[in-house]
């Protein structure tokens, strides 16, 4: 069974079902959505269990020809519907399953235009999960762009008072970045050759299934000697072929040997930088992070959960899936710069979080800070660092989902997010206090919680890496102290002392059943992954060691 | 470069035309007696006594008639080149007389197209000086008139 396609198309079809079902079923839309995301989660867990830990290559591959374009004397362009997961995407797919399910539960509070909301939510689910599984760069880009639309509407229609500003800012920032990715994509497309299809074209083999490594080498040699007529060359977006330098046309821009210069920059370096900007906006890395606090503040709780929990991870995932394997030598050369931006994000995000009075903004900036660790880990180009980065992405997905849910709980009751509006909540809401404490401690990196593993491994990677100076990583470590600072300070201000809430009559109720059912599992997950980090590391290890061979 | 000289001829023609006109006008000015009187200085209107401002409004119907006239008048130009080849003896001999019929039919088609235009203008009533009353169509609108009244009432307040 094409299980990955099911994972993508189930929510897409469900989205259409919701969009076209009559109004009298309005009350069931949320249950339907919850059911669909539950099935998604079940499939993700099934995938997780059947994932072969020892194989570095892609698994559960699905391939269909999608678009074939004759390009005249440029050859033939082919775009495939190509899905698969490996050690880097598997944790992300699992995370998507978890966060989307929790988000669906949290969406029960949506009370206006349910049809549109749940239909868009399911659309978002499908496109995000597709983004993590696409192995054709074009397909990846398609999902990458396409998920902006539901997100844009989800913020723009169901958001807070400044929703229009926040949603268009979110959209323009990300789109600006994705256009950079588009440029690199076109350049790669014109440079990279599909050796398998080309072998079929020039008659070395009769069918794609007969391919062997020798044939690929033969095609690559022919390519190098310019022996293949240009009409027979099949251009491709296939990410599996892009890391191999032999698949690049000898005179193309992005061939490592051609040394093309654009604006007195090496073309490959330029392409890498463009990708970095594109994915950096998504991550978000300082200084292109400013859309994030705005989007978070205006988005409704479930959308914030999805945004922080999954969408940010696509930035980091893009680095590991596209930028790094294809341009390894540039990545090595610019390691310092990348890590420097990572450290800047860590420190800048943390200082901002310290200064915020709005609880949601505080958490948004803490996200910036935490995603800085991802950049640090990836930039270090060590096994610990990259493993840690993937781990940090997973852990931050779970924890930030939890944090935003917690803010949502408070906001639902009082419609006030200012930190200084609350005092001594521990007396009235003991369970809520406990959950917040767990989330805060896990986020600030207390051992035995998942946040700790991610941060420690990325820092270890940073210290071990020969490419970056020690002092830079040391500054990053200082970010941990700041993190402890803002989380503990917030905890103290809101929960301790005498009970007082600004301008609020009535009693604050503790967690309801629905809230418990969202928060408890997440807390348990944070704990489980903190104690058994091999649950994720087993997945990632083989793939990342394979990736590191490129450098 | 040959074409350049052809264009040179055209330039020469233009220059010659300007010079010729200027010279003639200048000569006339020198030779003719100059005795202006009031009659001579009035605007020429085909012998009519000029009356009132020159910027009067003409009846719009003049324009329509003039337009139609110009259209059909200009089409006559196309008859001249046709006439030169219609009776071409060599062509007739070469085609066994078929040429004559062919060109005749061609011209009928051409004039036929013009006729259709004339018919259109005629039916439209552009040829009548006094235009008939505009006929409203028999077409019944699906929207009842009461609806319009309602709208008028609603917005007239």
């Amino acid at each position, binding site marked *: 069974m094409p299980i990955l396609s099911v994972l993508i198309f189930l929510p897409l079809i469900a989205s259409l079902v919701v969009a076209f079902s009559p109004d009298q079923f309005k009350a069931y839309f949320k249950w339907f959505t919850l059911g669909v995301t539950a099935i998604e989660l079940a499939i993700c867990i099934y995938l997780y269990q059947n994932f072969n830990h020892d194989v570095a290559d892609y698994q559960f591959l699905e391939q269909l020809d*999608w*678009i*074939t*374009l*004759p*390009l*005249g*004397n*440029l050859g033939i362009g082919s775009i495939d519907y190509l899905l698969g997961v490996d050690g880097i995407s598997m944790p992300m797919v699992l995370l998507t399953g978890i966060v989307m399910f929790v988000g669906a539960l949290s969406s029960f509070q949506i009370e206006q235009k349910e049809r549109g909301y749940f239909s868009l939510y399911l659309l978002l689910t499908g496109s995000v999960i597709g983004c993590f599984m696409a192995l054709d760069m074009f397909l990846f*880009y*398609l999902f990458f*762009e*396409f998920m*902006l*639309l539901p997100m844009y*509407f989800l913020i*723009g*229609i169901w958001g807070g008072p400044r*929703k*229009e500003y926040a*949603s*268009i800012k979110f*959209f*323009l920032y990300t*789109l*600006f970045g994705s*256009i950079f990715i*588009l*440029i690199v994509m*076109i*350049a790669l*497309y*014109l440079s990279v050759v599909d050796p398998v299809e080309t072998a079929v074209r020039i008659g070395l083999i009769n069918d794609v299934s007969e391919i062997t490594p020798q044939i690929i080498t033969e095609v690559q040699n022919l390519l190098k000697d310019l022996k293949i007529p240009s009409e027979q060359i099949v251009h491709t977006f296939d990410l599996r072929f892009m890391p191999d330098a032999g698949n690049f046309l000898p005179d193309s821009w992005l061939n490592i040997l051609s040394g093309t210069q*654009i*604006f007195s920059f090496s073309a490959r370096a330029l392409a890498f930088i463009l990708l970095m900007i594109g994915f950096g906006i998504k991550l978000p890395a300082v200084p292109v992070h400013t859309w994030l606090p705005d989007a978070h503040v205006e988005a409704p709780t479930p959308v914030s959960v999805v945004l922080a929990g999954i969408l940010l991870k696509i930035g980091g995932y893009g680095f590991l899936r596209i930028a790094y394997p294809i341009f390894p030598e540039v990545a090595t050369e610019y390691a310092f710069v990348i890590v420097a931006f990572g450290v800047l994000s860590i420190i800048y995000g943390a200082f901002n979080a310290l200064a915020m009075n709005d609880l949601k903004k505080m958490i948004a900036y803490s996200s910036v800070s935490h995603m800085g660790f991802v950049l640090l880990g990836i930039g270090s180009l060590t096994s610990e660092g990259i493993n840690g980065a993937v781990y940090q992405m997973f852990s931050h997905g779970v924890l930030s989902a939890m944090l935003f849910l917690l803010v949502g709980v408070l906001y639902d009751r009082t419609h006030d997010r200012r930190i200084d509006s609350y005092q001594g909540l521990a007396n009235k809401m003991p369970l809520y206090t406990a959950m917040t404490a767990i989330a805060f401690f896990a986020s600030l990196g207390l051992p035995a919680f998942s946040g700790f593993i991610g941060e420690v491994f990325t820092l270890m990677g940073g210290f071990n890496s020969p490419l970056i100076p020690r002092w830079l990583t040391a500054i990053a470590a200082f970010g941990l102290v700041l993190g402890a600072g803002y989380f503990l300070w917030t905890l103290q201000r809101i929960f301790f002392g005498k009970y007082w809430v600004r301008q609020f009559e009535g009693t604050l109720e503790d967690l309801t059943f629905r809230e418990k059912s969202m928060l408890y599992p997440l807390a348990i997950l944070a704990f489980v992954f903190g104690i058994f980090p091999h649950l994720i590391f087993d997945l990632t290890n083989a793939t990342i060691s394979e990736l590191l061979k490129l450098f | *470069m040959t*074409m*350049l000289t*052809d*264009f040179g001829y055209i330039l020469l023609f233009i220059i010659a035309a300007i010079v010729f006109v200027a010279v003639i006008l200048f000569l006339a000015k020198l030779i003719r007696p100059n005795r202006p009187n009031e009659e001579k200085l009035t605007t020429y209107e085909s012998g009519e006594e000029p009356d009132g401002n020159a910027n009067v409004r003409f009846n719009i119907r003049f324009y329509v008639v003039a337009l139609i006239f110009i259209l059909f008048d200009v089409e006559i130009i196309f008859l001249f080149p046709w006439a030169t080849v219609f009776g071409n003896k060599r062509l007739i001999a070469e085609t066994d007389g078929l040429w004559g019929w062919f060109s005749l039919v061609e011209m009928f088609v051409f004039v036929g197209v013009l006729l*259709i235009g004339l018919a*259109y203008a005629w*039916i439209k009533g552009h040829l009548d000086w006094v235009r008939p009353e*505009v006929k*409203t*169509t*028999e*077409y019944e*609108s699906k*929207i009842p008139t009461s609806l319009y009244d309602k709208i008028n009432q609603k917005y007239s307040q």
Partner: protein
Amino acid sequence: MNAIIALSLFGISNLFLGFLNNRKILLPATLVFILIALGLNFADWNHEYYWFNNMLKTNNLSVNFVTIILLSTFLVVAISRSFGDDDEHSHPAEYYAILLFSAVGAIMMVTFENLIMLFVGLEILSVSMYVLTGSDKRSLRSNEAALKYFLMGSFATGILLFGVALVYGATSSFDIHGIAQGVAKAKEQMGGAYGPLLYSGVILIMVGLLFKISAAPFHFWTPDVYDGAPSIFTAFMSTVVKTAGVAATYRILSISFPSVYGLWGNPLVYIVCATLIIGNITAVYQQSFKRMLAYSSISHAGYLLITVLAKRPETNSSLLFYSLAYAIATITAFAVLMVVSEAQAKNGKADESFEALNGLANNNPLLAFSLTISMLSLAGIPLTAGFFGKFFVFSDAFSNPSSLFKWILVIAILMSTVGIYYYFKPIIAAYMKKGEVAKIELSPLYKFILILTTTLTILLGLAPDLVKNIF
């Protein structure tokens, strides 16, 4: 090429159909006429024919362009709703006839083999458009637009004609292939240089044609004319006239003057950049949806010209695909604009500002959805036809080895980001702004056209090779 003759006859029959007392027959009759012409057009597929003593030439490229033109005409006619057939001042029979005549002009502009035919086609198209622009006789704006368009347009045609004369002087031919030979010969005689006659001739022809496709700096008429003309004719102008203009420009530049690329390429670089920048930046500041669409049409002329400039073997198909995607999306946008602006009319005048769209999605989901898809397509968001249009154009520019194209690409990409900002304004208005648009009753045909264009936009975004392989 029988399509030309058929369409002319149909136009005349349309005029006489107008004398029947039944105005309802006009719309279906015109649609059938266009479909017949479309069928006749396909008869030329896979043949290379010279027509009328080498005056016109059809090949697959021209058949494709004619198809796009006729398809656009079909869609525009289908959303015309008989021009409000309860209004006694409208002349639906004449409007339809003139639309058909102008389609004839457009077809001549994409099939011409002789510059005389280019001129005749351009004039047929332009004169028809002058009339249609001013067809809203009681509106001052419409009158102003028509006069402006007429004065500027005839001036541009004059320039074009002067260019044709000069090129004739330089190459002693009106035939576009003959000109190519003449240019080569002239270049040989001059030792690689080109004389002042050819130089000014090519530039003047280019100026005349660029005026018609409203490329900056010859775009000044566009916003006023597009804004003043009745929306239905604006839709026609921004699709059919633009497609024909770009096709004609491409035809003459690529067939007659490929050997003097430097001569027209260098000025065109600046024109493309200016068009992109002016079109997009000015569109941001518009308050009226219709005016925004006018500026957007300027900017799309810029994108189309990029691929003309890139001069790749794929330019043919990129140009076709882009024109098709752009035409479908624009017609959808105008279709929505027309019904909404009429429903929101203030003091008897149609409200064409963005505010008219506020809250459209509440009662009119189909209109809002079609509008969204068309805007996304114009902005070039993936899974819509517009994305692939831009993708192909950018690929062409990319694959041209000249380093100049990197700069053009930088500008084009920055400007498409700017474009996203203003294309989202209607979407924001329709879905997020508070406002009330009553439920608008649409005729079945209108609904069908909206669904058809929206589906086509998405379909071409999912599977561009469906048509790209034909082109």
